[in-house]
């Protein structure tokens, strides 16, 4: 029973990673770039909730909406200002820019909020559930359910809608898609918007799981989500979900049964082993040579 509760909190942590990893993988799929500022969007989303609830006294649901909107605007602006002018540049240039944007966000947050940790308001009021010996934290359950719903909706959106098809087309062949009349800039903006909205949701769940938020809070879950995206096969949407969940479970089980200090080392160790045997990740596709 203990194992089952650990598994469930692992799944809940994993679904936070999955939400973030989806942003990484979608942006990579479409813009062919690693957006290392993505992790810091989580931090911005969490701070937005703190400001909304503690300073403005908004209700939780409204705070969540404002936080998501803030992150969407921020994500789209970052793409327009920092990445779009570099679209035809070398991947390394874009990568360095993304790291720069990441530091910029952290520094601005530090200027505004100071470098200390802020306690995150209680946004999820669901009580802990006790079924026999099985204990499920309310927070974990809400995270798990909401993330699952988001992932289902996202999958349907990408699979079935017109914009989803445009996104898939752009990710396969940007130029051919444009010649078929698809507005590539708009499609990329929508991708950043979706990724940032997911990051905001992840930020809210992350804040309420750990209870504290600081200017650098985003980088660790950001890196872990990036690992999750690579683990699942970067560019693959089911891969990001699977990678995120796997990572969360591995992390939580190693914390519970092996060692809290070693849990991160184990997580990254598993990544190295998986990549040794499957360099493209669990669900990644073979990289095709472009002619």
């Amino acid at each position, binding site marked *: 029973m203990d194992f089952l509760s650990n598994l469930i909190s692992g799944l809940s942590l994993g679904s936070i990673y999955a939400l973030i990893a989806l942003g990484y993988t979608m942006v990579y799929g479409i813009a062919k770039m690693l957006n290392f500022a993505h992790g810091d969007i989580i931090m911005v989303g969490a701070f937005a909730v703190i400001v909304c609830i503690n300073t403005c006294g908004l209700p939780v649901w409204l705070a969540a909406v404002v936080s998501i909107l803030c992150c969407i605007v921020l994500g789209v602006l970052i793409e327009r200002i920092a990445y779009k002018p570099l679209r035809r540049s070398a991947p390394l240039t874009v990568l360095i820019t993304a790291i720069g944007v990441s530091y910029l966000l952290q520094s601005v947050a530090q200027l505004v909020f100071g470098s200390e940790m802020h306690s995150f308001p209680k946004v999820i009021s669901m009580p802990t559930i006790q079924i026999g010996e099985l204990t499920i934290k309310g927070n974990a359950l809400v995270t798990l359910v909401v993330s699952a719903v988001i992932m289902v909706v996202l999958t*349907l959106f990408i699979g079935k*809608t*017109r914009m989803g*098809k445009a996104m898939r087309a752009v990710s396969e062949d940007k130029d051919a898609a*444009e*010649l*078929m*009349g698809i507005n590539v800039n708009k499609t990329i903006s929508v991708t950043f918007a979706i990724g940032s909205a997911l990051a905001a949701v992840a930020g809210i769940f992350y804040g309420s799981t750990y209870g504290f938020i600081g200017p650098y809070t985003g980088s660790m879950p950001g890196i872990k989500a990036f690992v999750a995206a690579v683990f699942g096969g970067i560019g693959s949407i089911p891969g990001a979900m699977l990678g995120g969940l796997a990572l969360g479970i591995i992390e939580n089980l190693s914390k519970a049964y092996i060692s809290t200090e070693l849990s991160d080392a184990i997580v990254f160790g598993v990544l190295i082993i998986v990549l040794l045997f499957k360099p493209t990740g669990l669900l990644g596709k073979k990289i095709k040579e472009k002619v």
Partner: protein
Amino acid sequence: MMNKTKMVPFPSHAIVPERDVDKMPVLDARNLGMDFGGLVAVDDFSLLIGRTEIAGLIGPNGAGKTTVFNLLTNVYHPTRGAILLDGVSTEGKSTAQVNAMGIARTFQNIRLFSDMSVLDNVKVGLHNHIHERFLSAVTHAFGYTKAEKKANTRALELLDVFHMADHAFALAGSLPYGAQRRLEIVRALATEPKILLLDEPAAGMNPSETLELMNNIRKIRDEFQIAVLLIEHDMNLVMNICEGICVLNYGKIIAKGTAEQIKHNPVVIEAYLGNKGE
């Protein structure tokens, strides 16, 4: 085979002055030029194409044919000259906007969205003709939206014209070569172009596939009532179906005319044989 009442290919700079002048060409390229650094890739390229004409663009390798296609679709923005589509200039438009104005194309090396289904490939082409509201798309995502249903029907209709409806749910990348070429054409047609540009549509095809392609190109013109401009090395195909032919060499037009005229044009013969033949 040649329909004399049809609108005529290249009236303005024509080598065939006795033919009718096309009063309202669908495509009017005027003195296009493209320089890459100091290299002149295309120079003084002028071409008129009639509303339902099948025209050919031929020339030795490296003559600048694909560059012309890239200019016509604004993949490259011409250094000089102007392109009028139905009398409207495409200057400053993005590639996607040019497509929306009515120019669609296929590629020399097939560029399908190979991880998407055949049907979805066509629906990408229909992108600008599906109008759904964002919210309705998300809320109805569990089923299909009305717009999506319409797009499905239309895509299947288009596939059916080319006998591909049976493969609608196969992955585009898994189709045999000839079918991939056909699907690229269907996808381009889905964007509802006024003129379709085909870049070496018969490349890699065997004679029977080429014959089928020829019939399909005629069918496109007859059923969709649009113009077709094709780049092709298969002279049999070009001479058989093109009503007007334009020969390019070193980025310049060296001849325009009907198949008969081109065949016997000494400048053309020299361009081809002078390059050790094609």
